[in-house]
Each structure stands twice: as C-alpha cells, then as structure tokens.
C-alpha cells in the first residue's frame, strides 16, 4: 500500500475518531441531547473500506454508521447540524443521527431497522447494473443483523442477479447486549456466503493493510461485474450499545482483548513505521479538531426547523395547513 493511500486511510480514521470524541464531549457537557451510537473501535475498518471507493459510489448504513458517513465524506457541519436537530442539517433535522442521508457523497440511506439496508442496497446496485453507471454499492451492517430475514433474502437475490454490491459486515462481536456466540452457531459470518454461492472475504479489520486489500478485492470484484461480495471485517465495539449505555455484560477477557486491538494506536504506529512524523500526524489531528469545533459551533448556532416542516416532504406536494 503506497504512503498516499495510507495517509488517506489515516486521515479518514482520525476524522472518525476525533468526531466520536467531539460528540461524546458535547453530550457529556450537556450541549447536545441525542441518542448517539458510538462506533469507538470501528474507525479503521470503515476508513479502509471507504478509501477503496469513489465519492459517487453508493453507501447504505445504520444508526451506528456515523463513522461510515464521515469516512465516505459527509461534511461535518451538515452532520452536526442534523444530529442537533437543526434546519441546516443534512435532512433539515427531520432524520437525525439514525437517518443521515447525503446523496452528494453517495450516502443514500441510513436505517434504524436492523438488516433493512441490505435489500435497499440491492436496488441501488440494480440501478447501476441497468444504467451501467459503473458504481458499486456498499452496505454496512453488524454481526447481529445477519440473523434477520432481510439479510438472507438480499444475499440470495444479489447473487441471483450478480449485482455490484458489497455486503460489508462490521463484526464487532456484539448485537446490543448479546455476544456473537450466543446468537450465531458458526465461527464466522463469511461461512454464510457459501449458502448463496457468493464470494466471501474474512479479514481482521484492525489490520490496516489487510483490511484495505480486502476492500480493494471486494470493490474490484463487484465493479468488474463478477457479482456481490460478503466482506466480514472483525472488530470491536469498545463501548456500550449506545453512548452512556452500560456494558458490564462484556466479560473481562473480552475487554482486555478489545483494548489490545484498539485500531487507533495501531494505525498511528503503522504511520510512524512508514516514516510519517509525530508532527505531521498531530497536525492532521489538529486540523480535524478545528474543523469539528467550527462544525459544532455552526450546528448549535443554527435555527430549529419550523413546524411547517411537518407538512413538507411527506409527499412531493406540500400538505395544506
């Protein structure tokens, strides 16, 4: 992997990491009251994936997908305004953190219903297949989502039609409070690809090089018309199901393993190995923090949507007051 790409992945990773810090500090300080599904521990898996995509490739993600959206390129100011419920947000405050949409960066759907993104991703990919626009669609979801019917139906249909879609399972080993081994009796989600005759890739998502290589392999496969891919990236959810939620149900051994696999120190070490200087890295982080401060300020200073918005966007035509 060349230094430029590594820098790209590092930058996306730190944008995710710093934003997560920022959101949590805004919530703790009471400046922001919102349900926030922190993705702490999953910054690198998605950054390496998005670094293998074009901006106009489609993304479908979940309530926990702020890292996916940031790595895909959603502007901080619009994201922060949306999560703060302001009219300047990506969705005028109507969607909120669970429903970020930003077509300009290919973010077509963020769903709060587990597994529901996969069938929709097929439709985006179907349109690319018919219009030959060359796009691939990446659909992010978790390990727990692989036990719901929509996953199964979408996997099979994608393979039947050889759709250019990548089912990107960020296996963080927990679905809410339930450990992977308690909801699934196979060692790896990728086993399920075989049930559809689909290409499957299993990778340690916190290994930047392996993760990026897997992402490129998946994207090349899908973009070249060879069909869908199930890409399972192993990672950890380093906090509770949502920020503030207790996670005492995680065993000590798991917490220790998790701490050892924290992607942030790992990627920083990798950068230094590649002759990036501490100063260079700190500068990147400082710039991101400045951008985040401005975004938060913009968001919190923005007006709330007016009640008229309840009559707008229900249908194309506005509903009479």
């Amino acid at each position: 992997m060349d230094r430029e790409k590594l820098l790209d992945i590092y930058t996306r990773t730190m944008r995710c990491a710093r934003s997560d810090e920022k959101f949590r500090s805004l919530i703790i300080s009471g400046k922001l009251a919102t349900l926030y599904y922190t993705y702490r521990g999953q910054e690198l898996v998605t950054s390496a994936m998005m670094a293998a995509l074009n901006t106009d490739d489609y993304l479908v993600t979940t309530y926990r997908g702020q890292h996916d959206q940031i790595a895909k390129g959603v502007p901080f100011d619009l994201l922060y305004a949306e999560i703060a419920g302001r009219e300047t947000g990506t969705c005028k405050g109507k969607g909120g953190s669970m429903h970020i949409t930003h077509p300009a960066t290919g973010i077509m759907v963020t769903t709060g219903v587990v597994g529901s993104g996969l069938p929709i991703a097929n439709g985006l990919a179907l349109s690319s297949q018919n219009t030959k626009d060359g796009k691939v669609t990446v659909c992010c979801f978790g390990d727990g989502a692989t036990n719901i019917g929509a996953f199964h139906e979408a996997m099979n249909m994608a393979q039947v039609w050889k759709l250019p879609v990548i089912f990107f399972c960020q296996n963080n080993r927990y679905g809410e409070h339930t450990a992977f081994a308690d909801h699934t009796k196979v060692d790896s989600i990728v086993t399920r690809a075989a049930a559809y005759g689909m290409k499957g890739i299993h990778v340690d998502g916190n290994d930047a090089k392996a993760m990026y290589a897997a992402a490129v392999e998946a994207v090349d496969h899908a973009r070249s018309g060879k069909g869908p891919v199930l890409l399972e990236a192993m990672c950890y959810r380093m906090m509770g199901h949502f920020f503030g939620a207790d996670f005492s149900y995680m065993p000590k051994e798991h917490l220790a393993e998790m701490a050892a696999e924290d992607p942030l120190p790992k990627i920083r070490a990798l950068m230094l190995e590649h002759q990036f200087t501490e100063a260079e890295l700190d500068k990147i982080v400082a710039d991101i923090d400045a951008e985040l401060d401005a975004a938060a300020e913009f968001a919190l200073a923005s007006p709330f949507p007016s009640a008229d918005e309840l009559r707008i966007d229900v249908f194309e035509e506005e509903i009479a007051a």
Partner: protein
Amino acid sequence: MSGKITLGAAINRAIDECMAADEGVILLGEDVAAKQGGGVFKISAGLTEKYGEHRIRATPISEQAIMGACVGAALAGMRPIAEIMLMNFLTVSMDQLVNHAAKLRFMSGGQTNVPLVVRTTTGVGVGFGGQHSDMLEAWFAHVPGLKIVTPSNPADAYGLMKSAIACNDPVIFIENILSYGMTAEIPEGYEAPLGKAAVAREGSDVSLVTYGRCVADALAVAEELAGAGVSVEVIDLRTIAPYDEETVTASVAKTGRAVVLHEAVKQYGTGAEIAARINEALFGKLKAPVQRLGGAFSAVPMANALEQAWIPTKDGIKAAVHATMKG
C-alpha cells in the same frame, strides 16, 4: 387503442406504454418474466420480449428483497413496479414499505424520494381462504407518505396505473382478482389523475361512497333502487387515500345521506375515517346516520357458503340505503 380489453390487459397496456417511454420503469416480482409465463395472473405477459429480463425481473420468493430492491432502485432515480402476488404477502414486506418507502422523503428532508408502484391483488369471493383474501388498505392509509389507488373498471385501471407510475411518491395499486376479466374500451388518451374521485352515477337522495370491485355492486343497486324511486349517487373514490374529500363532502351535502361501502373488514376500515369526516364536515346537516358496510369481523372463511356471508351483499347495500331514507 380501440376495441374492448380486459382490466388485466389495461394494466399491461399502461405498464407497456410507460416502459416504452422510460428506461427507468422496471417490474420486479415472482414469476413475472416470459420464462415463467408473465406472472401467475399473466399481467406482465409480453413485456419481457419487448424490454428484456433486466427490466422484467422474475425474483426468488423474497418479498422483503423485492420491496427493498424497488425502494433502492427508486432512490437511484428509477421507477420500479413491485408485484406482490397477493395483498396478504405485503405482511412480509411491511418494514420496507412502511419504515422506508413511505418515510425516506421525509426523513431525508426531501433529498431523496421513492417513485415506487406496488402492484398487488386480492379479493373475497374467490375461495382462497383466510390468508389470501384480505383487503388491508386501511393500514396503508394510516401511514403518512403512501398513496393508495384501486380501479373499478378497465379505463381507470389504465389511467390510474399511468398516474401511479408518474407519481414521485410510493403508490399502492390494489387489483381485485374478480375484476381482471371486466372488459371495456379505453378512450383515446384517457387519464385518471391521483386524488380525484369519480361520480360513477349521479343521484339526489343518498350518496354511496365506495371503491374497487364494490363499485359494480353499488351501481347495480343504484339502478335497481332508481326503479323504486330512490336516487342514489355513486362515488368511486379511485384514490382510496389521501381521498377526494371535496367530492365526497359536496355529494353528501347535496343528498344529506351517506352509505360508505368496502370489502375490507368494517371495523377500523377506511369507512371509519370517511364516516368520521362526513360527520365532522356536515354536523347537524345529515338527514340520517352515516351507514358503514364492510366485511365481517372474522378471517375470510374458505367455505363458499361462509365466504358469501362474509362480504357485503347487494341486499345488504340496499338495506343500508333504505335505512338512511328512514331519516
């Protein structure tokens, strides 16, 4: 476009014309392609030959995936038509339809929209029993973001389908198995805009508000009662929701009496909302209580003897009209 055609053929013609005009119009559903014979009810017969399997896509038995794929394709700018073989099978794809198709325009603040048509068929009186006969339009009427239409005749089947495909929001297009065979000529350039009811028959004594297959019964009853000196105005809603309240209110304001009729279970059916609004709009001006007619409060029975007792009959409709005349 001359000569009589069936209601089924009218739907096929509308889809055909839209597919010819717009590459983005596609049809997804079980058995819909040529290889499978153009659908169980043959509504898509002949379309694969013209437009190819990439646009007429026969799917696995996966209603969630069918609906979801249509939602995604619509988000990307296509105009997908999802065929859900029977209305009861929509129960399998409610999440995609209700939590996604209906809400994405709103939740995205208008950045995206879902120009989707969901074609589905159903109907009581076919002997299909408890899991293949339900009319569930009241559920969808309760969901902001969805439009619901149903044709009572071939011309409207053609016109409403063209309007539904042209609509930039999700439209549920309800077909009735027993109506597929109805034949009529489609007037050149016929149009049936969404949200506009049709006065199927003018009258002065009682307004009979209905839609779909029931319209035929309503007209038959109106004809018969005309002989008995009762003038019944039949309103065919065509768009079940959001419905043409203006036309309904105007008619009832004129007659002072209303009967609301549908095949769906009466309790909590669309008739409840229509009756409630009539009462709100014309409080103190009605000559009699609004009469509601609908299916019995049970699952649809398979035995023909019971099934016929389950649906509103012409005699039942007559009795309801007479009841309003007492007032």
